[in-house]
């Protein structure tokens, strides 16, 4: 699995801890990495992902439906699950401000042995690390 992940685009380093079942992925400096592709790569290597946390820097934007999303690059953005932390970021929507967030991007649905790796990823903000 480590080798399989290491071959994915944008991956600089992969650390696997067999004891606690943790896999840490360090992206290359440009940060151009696709979490959905990593999820698929893990599933393809025969392992099930219970949850995926991410630390990401980007801008809060409003999509066409008025929902808030985190834009990481012109071609990459994540829908955000509404919670109290998101309310504190609402005033920054469509402003030039950049935020650094830690959040949960994926959690395996309870009761399912194996979730569909193609399910859309949605960011649940756990911590606002920085506002710039």
């Amino acid at each position: 699995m480590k080798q399989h992940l290491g071959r994915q685009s944008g991956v600089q380093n992969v650390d696997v801890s067999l004891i606690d079942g943790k896999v840490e992925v360090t992206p290359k400096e440009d940060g151009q990495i696709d979490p959905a592709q990593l999820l698929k790569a893990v599933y393809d290597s025969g392992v099930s992902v219970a949850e995926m946390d991410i630390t990401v820097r980007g801008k809060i934007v409003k999509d066409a439906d008025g929902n808030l999303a985190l834009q990481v690059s012109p071609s990459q953005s994540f829908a955000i699950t509404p919670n109290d932390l998101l309310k504190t970021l609402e005033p920054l929507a469509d402003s030039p401000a950049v935020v650094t967030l830690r959040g949960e991007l994926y959690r395996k649905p309870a009761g399912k042995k194996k979730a569909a790796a193609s399910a859309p990823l949605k960011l649940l903000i756990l911590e606002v690390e920085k506002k710039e």
Partner: protein
Amino acid sequence: MNARKLTFLFLLGSMFVPAAQAQIKHIEMRVEGMT
């Protein structure tokens, strides 16, 4: 004229720099079934 051009370029650059620095910094997964 040059000073105005430089000011314009500086303002333009400061608009795009934060967006260029946006990125994924770290990803952590908890996996099951690993042997």
